[in-house]
């Protein structure tokens, strides 16, 4: 209305009538429901079946998990109702998070968690200065694993030594997956480049490595590392079980990562390589400045997919007697003093995994949006 002239000719000026709101049948939830849920007889039937299933399941779940669940107390007797016994989870929470890590030293694990949060959380905050984010990311990929390793293991700077046999729970899950992720990405990139190399020796080595590790299931890699390897080592040489598992996981994941990244490399048009050469860039500079930034951006979903798979695969260390978060849950639910708490335990473990995997997935979506430069078809 600001444009309306205020002169005497105002009466003659064309005044548009404010548009009427569309009829209620054309907008809002009703219209949406008609378009999406009741657009054809088949859809009506499917919607009704869906609603019926929701009605069957959801109230029961909510009732079990929240309404008639027990939250406070310290023993089985504090769970008299039919609902979930979250008391058990709360009582055992320390064990689920720290495993066998000694009580007095648990602050070291807390520091690890805090530093991890300090590295990760800013990556999700759009307003955070980009430079700070970059530095935090670089810190997370390089110094952080080293600092954390020294901190958790101890034996230096007056910290008591904590053997890896005492690591467990959520902390072990995070250690396994973080090391797996941080180490697998660079090794995977090198392997992918090596596989596309024109040098026959390097190419052959990379192909053999990738195909060998990709051709065996992770469970057998872990099994070899924990059961067969000690037999082949000379007497007295007995290197750490967690380290063996970590090496196995990193080898395995880097082979997968290499193939994902190779997919990205193959998606780069030949013109990009030629343009880079025409600019006078050598192999490493053209790879680092032209090819990889484009290739990695293209395969973010694949990379994150591999990370998520890795995060969940870490539970396989159960079979070599390491207690990741699922392992601690399984060890705790056999306690006869607690009765039937298996469901609560598994729900809790599933929830923990979901939180981390969903977080990774959201982050990758955000990253894709940010790096979107119009190449998408």
């Amino acid at each position, binding site marked *: 209305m600001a444009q309306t002239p205020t002169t005497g000719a105002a009466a003659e000026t064309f005044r548009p009538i404010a548009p009427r709101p569309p009829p209620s049948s054309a907008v809002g939830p009703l219209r949406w429901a008609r378009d999406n849920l009741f657009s054809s007889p088949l859809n009506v039937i499917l919607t009704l079946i869906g609603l019926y299933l929701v009605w069957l399941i959801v109230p029961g779940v909510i009732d079990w998990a929240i309404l008639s669940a027990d939250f406070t107390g310290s023993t089985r007797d504090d769970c008299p109702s039919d609902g979930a016994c979250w008391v058990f989870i709360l*009582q*055992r929470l*320390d*064990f689920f998070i*720290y*495993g*066998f*890590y000694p*009580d007095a030293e648990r602050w070291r694990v807390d520091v690890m968690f805090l530093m991890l949060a300090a590295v990760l959380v800013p990556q999700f905050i759009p307003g955070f200065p980009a430079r700070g984010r970059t530095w935090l990311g670089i810190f997370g990929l390089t110094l952080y694993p080293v600092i954390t390793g020294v901190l958790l293991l101890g034996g230096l700077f007056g910290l008591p030594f904590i*053997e890896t*046999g*005492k690591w*467990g729970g959520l902390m072990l899950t995070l250690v396994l997956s973080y090391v797996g992720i941080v180490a697998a990405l660079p090794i995977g990139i090198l392997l992918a480049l090596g596989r596309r190399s024109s040098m026959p020796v390097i190419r052959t080595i990379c192909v053999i490595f990738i195909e060998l590790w990709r051709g065996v299931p992770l469970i057998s890699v872990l*099994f070899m590392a*924990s*059961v*067969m390897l*000690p*037999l*082949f*080592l000379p*007497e*007295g040489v*007995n290197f750490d*079980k967690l380290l063996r598992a970590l090496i196995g996981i990193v080898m395995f994941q880097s082979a997968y990562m290499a193939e994902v990244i190779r997919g990205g490399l193959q998606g780069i048009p030949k013109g990009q390589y030629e343009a880079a050469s025409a600019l006078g860039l050598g192999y490493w500079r053209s790879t680092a400045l032209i090819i990889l930034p484009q290739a990695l951006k293209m395969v973010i979903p694949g990379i994150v997919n591999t990370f998520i798979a890795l995060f969940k695969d870490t539970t396989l260390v*159960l*079979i*070599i*007697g390491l*207690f990741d978060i699922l*392992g*601690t849950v*399984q*060890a*705790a639910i*056999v*306690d*006869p*003093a607690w*009765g*039937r708490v*298996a469901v609560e335990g598994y729900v809790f473990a599933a929830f923990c995994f979901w939180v981390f995997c969903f977080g990774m997935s959201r982050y990758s979506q955000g990253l894709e949006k940010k790096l979107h430069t119009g190449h998408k078809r």
Partner: protein
Amino acid sequence: MTRFVSAVAAGLATLVVGAAGAQAAETLDTVKERGEVSCGVTTGLAGFSMPDQSGTWSGIDVDFCRAVAAAVLGDASKVRFVPLTAKERFTALQSGEIDILSRVTTWTFTRDTSLGLNFVGTTFYDGQGFMVNKDLGVSSAKDLDGASICVGAGTTTELNLADYFRIQGMDYNPVVFAAISETAQGFESGRCDVLTSDQSQLYAIRSKLEDPSSAVVLPEVISKEPLGPVVRQGDDAWFNVVKWVLFAQLNAEELGVTSDNIEEMTGSDNPSIKRLVGTDGDMGEKLGLSADWAANIIAQVGNYGEMFERNVGMDSPLEIARGLNALWSEGGIQYAPPVR
């Protein structure tokens, strides 16, 4: 192909035995030097070895390792527990990662003779049994003709079950599950009338039922499952130590020496007790241990009966009766050579 496979298997077996042989003869010294007994346990089995909320292990298998630590190092807390799965347990022992395997391991001919290992004795006489719903009104396994039976897949349990019913000339309908927890679920939801497993397991499952008194464990035991600690073959000194830790605990129970009365018993005039607690003779020295080795076990861990009752017996949620595990003098078969 088969020849190749068997050649590889033979090579591996040689390697295994070779590795075990090479470890020989100094476990006791190694343990003393390290100041810690390394003990292989389960990844969580109620009553036998299970971590509590602060991560401390408890159970009868765990207590046995503590008893060994008390005897060798004088301190029952100096044990490093290594949780192992069933598949890796023997390798861990063969490779020297652990000193004792105390992990509900059944003593069988093949394991004793071909793995380069020695079974020390039996800490728990187990056996496969049946659990039925009380409402069924069955009091003997012989009444189970035509029953549907929940059983874990691919275990000796399944084979024993088939054997038993064939011998009895009865029919049954197996309901097979992948894991023991699912088996229990199947039993509870009424998928089967009967559940079969090792008796210790049956009691653990029963304690987890909504109403534990609604199920009964039948008296028949259809297989022998002597569970006991295992050590490497070829290290007789260590074998003797571990063996006599168990025997000392059994003798202590027989002589009425408990963790409560050990103080006054050290002043006892009974020559058997004096030899056991080390006030007479040089029993400890013969094992390469201090004179009060057995007194330490009893004071810090207790005798066999205490260890049993605390973890799996009537004082525990499992409520397993002593049965075969009672002393020979009380109707069981637990029998130890004298300390003399």
